[in-house]
């Protein structure tokens, strides 16, 4: 039972990080209907800048730089590439982000070479006991940070002008534009926010407790596991992203323990497949309807 409880807490901790990443997918999808395949490279980019600036700025400063620069990269990709191809359909733009992802990821992996630095210094590898179970600090911090960020996002989405504009645009792009909503501004901030969330997530991913590995190509593939999270929750649902993230975290933690570590990566995708067969637009996603 204790193992189980421990797994649940660890799974939720991991899930919180997946939720942050999945939320990034969802925000971009809601604002632009583009699925951002380059999300993993935003994660790597943020992490890489933490590595580069850590000696000069210390952990806190470097982390801030990493988070901000991941956001800025998202912004640059949107301004430089996506906003210039307004007439391309969303699916081609998704393919475009694959191209961006290949370039950024390969370059950062090349720069990292064989050094695979850990990022989460402040809380990493300091387990503590609580009523007979060993908890990793990383997971608890991740849960806390994700809870704060997601609540903040949710409040902004609900009450701020940006949130209103964003929701209007997600509802009907043209009508929103006619009502005076500057669609480019909404889109740009969506990418910025998604990048920032990716920059926060990497501080947890590249740690001893989370993945057991430092910043590497593996970090990118962990970010890919947030894909099923976003999809199984429903690509256009923010609540779905959170639920999806937690489900993915739990599935991964439990299957790694009870089946095998190798299986845990596929388990996540299997669960997603099952959900999709039952609900093709995810748990909370809007169903596409066709009328004849």
């Amino acid at each position, binding site marked *: 039972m204790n193992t189980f409880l421990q797994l649940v807490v660890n799974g939720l901790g991991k899930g919180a990080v997946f939720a942050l990443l999945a939320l990034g997918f969802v925000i971009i999808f809601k604002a632009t209907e583009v*699925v951002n395949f380059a999300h993993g490279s935003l994660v790597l980019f943020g992490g890489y800048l933490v590595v580069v600036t850590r000696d000069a700025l210390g952990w806190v400063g470097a982390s801030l730089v990493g988070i901000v620069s991941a956001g800025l990269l998202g912004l640059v990709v949107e301004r430089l*590439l996506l906003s*210039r*191809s307004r007439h*391309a359909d969303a*699916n*081609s*733009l*998704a*393919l*475009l982000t*694959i*191209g*961006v*992802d*290949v*370039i950024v990821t*390969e*370059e950062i992996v*090349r*720069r990292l*070479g*064989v*050094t695979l630095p850990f990022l989460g210094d402040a809380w990493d590898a300091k387990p503590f006991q609580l009523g007979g179970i060993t908890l990793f600090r990383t997971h608890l911090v991740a849960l806390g940070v994700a809870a704060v960020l997601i609540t903040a996002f949710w409040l902004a989405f609900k009450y701020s002008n940006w949130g209103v504009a964003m929701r209007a645009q997600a509802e009907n792009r043209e009508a929103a534009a006619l009502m005076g909503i500057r669609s480019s501004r909404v889109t740009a901030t969506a990418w910025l926010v998604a990048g920032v969330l990716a920059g926060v997530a990497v501080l947890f991913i590249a740690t001893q407790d989370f993945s057991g590995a430092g910043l590497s*190509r*593996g970090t990118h*593939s962990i970010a*890919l596991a947030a*894909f*099923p999270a976003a*999809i199984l929750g429903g*690509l256009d649902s923010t609540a779905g992203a959170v639920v999806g993230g937690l489900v993915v975290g739990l599935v991964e933690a439990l299957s790694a323990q009870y089946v*095998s570590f*190798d*299986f845990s*990566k*596929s388990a*996540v*995708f*299997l669960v*997603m*497949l099952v959900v*999709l*067969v039952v609900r*093709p*637009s*995810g748990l909370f996603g809007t169903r*596409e309807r*066709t*009328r*004849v």
Partner: protein
Amino acid sequence: MSEVDAPPEPQAPPRPRRNLAKLVRTAAWLALLVVLLALPLYLDAAWLKAGQYMMIGGVGAIGLTLVVGQAGQLSLAHAFFLLAGGTAYTVLSGPAGDDRVIGFGLDPGLSLLGAVAVAALLGLAFAPVAGRLRGIYLGVASLALVFLGLYFGQSAEELTGGTSTGRTPAPFSLFGFPFTNDGPEITLLGVPIRQAERTWYLFLLLTVLAFVIARGAVHGRVGRSWRAVRDNEAAAAVMGVSVMRAKAGAFAVSSAYGGLAGAMTVLWFDILKPDESEFGTYGINVSIAFLAMVIIGGLGSVPGALVGALIVNGLPQVLALYSADLGWFSGTGDGALTPVLVSSFVYGAAIVLVVLFEPGGLAAIGRRLTQRRFRRQPPEEK
């Protein structure tokens, strides 16, 4: 993407310009074929090996362009079907009675057909899922297959040989004629036709077959139903196209092509070695590389897929061969630029540029160039 092709008007008056264009095009294809047939007499084994690798890419990319471009279903599962085909070939042709791995000892030619069939069946098995999903949802769902393939490679050691050692496939032979250095010595114009040359001809035959069949499908009824489903599922259904069947068919055909490319891959490497991580011979990066070929070539265009394969699979090979002469990429270890890395940059950039400036890909550019010459020719099918 083109709209659904109108069927050719019956008894249309012959248009000389159009016939001329057709003649020129056929002549060009034939000339290309002759050149490809003659190349083994002039190139050495290393270049032939590089060429074979491009043909593997070509076969796989043709399959992917059918499902992604023609039928409009995003698939990231191609690497899985590569692994499935490669494994099926190795298992079917492998010697029976090995106590470490399973083998059926079948004739290699038959095993190759078997590999294609197994991959097609796996594609069909995924069809119920593929039929229900659309666009990005399908893309990510198909990504699940790559992860399942990774797990399969790691755990089904009796079939795949396991990630650490892998297993060797039976060398290919057709009706007893070996595609190795053994067997009858053949000399053509003073050039001995050995393994590299023989495999070149085998791969060329497979590529041409793949190409012709795909062109046939695209031009025919099947292709029309795929494009109808791609453009509007509801409209296609109203017109009497069975949407589920068209989607499942496209997926199965594309998987069969993937399986063939996988069997070719195993023969090319002369080893079946499943990946240890999700990046490798059968990983996500390979799925993305195939998608890159298809996008760069122009979604849905069969010749475009071949050109895409030439760029994406050919570049690392050609760079590696040239770099030995030129002294490029001599660095090793940390931060070294390798041919693979450089070509990743190139095709990553090519995807971005194609989407930004020419969504029709190289096929659209090619079409524009030929149309300038034969101006009155109606737009070709994609």
